[in-house]
């Protein structure tokens, strides 16, 4: 039993890392009042570009930087459209997703070496492998926490830092103020445009990193549609987390954990029809989402930034 739980935790953590990166990124973006639905496209672009860089240069560090650069650039486009041009955030985000996923599969067929008909699929590049912490990784139950790839270890620092920054620093307060009430923030002397550009771009960089985790660590290599809709799951996880980076981990672990459990059940030869088991992670997400929103509503603490999705115009009333 303990072995089973330990192995479930190991799988859950591996499956959850990319979700946590993108969720924390999107939380920061949405906290500034910008809704970015381009996650799926940014993750795919992060995955394809980081794999290509890793394959050609052999450097995982460069690959990760490339994923952040590409994710950041796409998010910057979104920021330009929605902050400066005040375009509809939903439309702009969706077009980033369409553009990103189309371009990613296009690049996947062009960036490869000639001997592989210029495809990236099927190539083996450098990858992040789990590094076990001596001693700690042998512990029962919690052992897997100390046997992860470097990108996951970074999350152990990133998540608490993201939480601390958001709730305990002046800059975090300014970020939240811009998302709740940009007019007041502006009056306080906060540069709303700068804040929104900055955190939308940072969000994109983290999302690109989430994509890189898929192609460099979780399922090493490039394949078409490697994200499999994870960008959309992240949007649900952000609400699930009530825009709190610390809770993002819980959501990603719950979603990934139930997925791992249902695959184990199927592999153990259960008689429950696969369709019901496949549904479980999504069903649980919906149920918990409803329950939590209800509870939050009762205690009058809705987490959504009040100005989310609204463009800010200084002169307008």
């Amino acid at each position, binding site marked *: 039993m303990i072995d089973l739980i330990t192995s479930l935790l190991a799988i859950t953590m591996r499956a959850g890392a990319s979700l946590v990166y993108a969720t924390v990124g999107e939380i920061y973006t949405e906290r500034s009042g910008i809704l970015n639905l381009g996650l799926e496209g940014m993750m795919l672009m992060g995955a394809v570009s980081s794999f290509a860089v890793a394959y050609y240069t052999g450097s995982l560090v460069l690959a990760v930087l490339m994923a952040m650069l590409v994710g950041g650039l796409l998010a910057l486009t979104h920021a330009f459209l929605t902050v400066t*041009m005040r*375009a509809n955030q939903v439309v702009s985000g969706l*077009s980033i997703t*369409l*553009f990103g996923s189309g*371009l990613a599969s296009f690049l*996947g067929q062009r960036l490869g070496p000639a001997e592989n008909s210029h495809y990236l699929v099927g190539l083996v590049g450098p990858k992040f492998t789990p590094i076990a912490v001596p001693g700690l990784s042998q512990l029962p139950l919690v052992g897997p926490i100390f046997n992860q790839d470097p990108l996951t270890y970074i999350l152990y620092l990133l998540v608490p830092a993201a939480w601390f920054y958001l709730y305990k620093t002046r800059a975090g307060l300014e970020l939240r103020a811009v998302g709740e009430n940009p007019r007041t923030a502006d009056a306080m002397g906060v540069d709303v445009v700068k804040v929104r550009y900055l955190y939308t771009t940072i969000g994109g960089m983290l999302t690109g990193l989430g994509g890189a985790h898929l192609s460099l660590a979780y399922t090493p290599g490039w394949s078409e549609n490697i994200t499999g809709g994870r960008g959309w799951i992240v949007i649900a996880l952000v609400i699930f987390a009530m825009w709190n980076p610390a809770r993002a981990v819980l959501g990603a672990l719950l979603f990934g954990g139930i997925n791992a459990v249902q695959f184990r059940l199927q*592999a153990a030869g259960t008689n429950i029809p696969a369709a019901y088991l496949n549904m479980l992670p999504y069903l649980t997400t919906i149920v918990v989402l409803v329950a939590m929103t209800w509870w939050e509503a009762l205690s009058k603490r809705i987490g959504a930034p009040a100005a989310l999705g609204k463009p800010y115009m200084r002169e307008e009333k």
Partner: protein
Amino acid sequence: MKRWSWILIVVLLLTTVLTACGGKQEAQTEKIRLALILPSTIDDMAWSQSMYEGVMAVQKEMGEDKMEVAVSERLGNPVDAGAAIRQYADQGYNIIIAHGSQYQNVLEEIAPDYPDVSFAYGTGYEAHDNIFAYDPQAQEGAYLQGIIAGMMTKSNIIGVVGPVEAGDAIKYNYGFQQGVEAVNPDAEVRIAYTGSFGDIAKAAELAKAHMDAGADFLTGTAQQVVGAINAAKEHGGVYWLSNDMDQSSLAPETVISAQVYHWEKVVQQIIDAHQKGETGKHIVLSFANGALELKYNPQLESQIPQEVKDAVEQAKQQIIDGTLTVKLPEN
């Protein structure tokens, strides 16, 4: 200001449409113009890539001046595909292959408007007027691969990484199960589904779950298996039986055999029928007509005992001469 942002968005969207649908256009002399509509991409290492390579093989044979090919990828949604199909028909393409069973209804809708164009889709069997239906008997090769797995497994646990419990996957898994049962009634075939066709990461997770549960032979269908094969390769000590095309290039030490679809024979048949002005046919891919083939990975062939190869060969002959029929699930 606002107007500019809309223009930018439109440009972004247009670029997407162009990258997604941008076909490959070749030589402009008359003769056969063939358009291929694919649900995934030409590099999916499975269903779509095998058909694309089949079409390209025919084009190479006929010469680029005799045959022009256009490809549209990522049109898994039949509604989007319908728009592309009409466009190709309007542009004067003679043969339009929509590579998936989901396109049947949309072809029924469009085909009557273009009586001079030949349409094809598959897996399916309903062919009429100018619609061809092709129908791979996936259960046949699955049965043969079941024999390999059943005779060679040591743990007596065999895992199937299925996509969605429907159509072709059921056919394949059903045949596979019969093959295993025929040679090793003690072995357990555990059929699991990810609930998606293209989620590589989920397929990898499912393969890992199978291997942790003790499976030493794995198989599965759909383009997502790339993830499962990679997971098996990383795990080591297990074999993968591949379908659609020879996937051994992904993992030369894991993929032991493959059921290969010879789409070029199907494409050639459709072209011949079109040129003779024949009406739509139900085209079967089977071992009997050579459109299906079981291939061993040359690198691993030495690890397959001769008795296994003999049993496979015998069953193959029986399938070909009709003394053995691999059953299909009753609907």
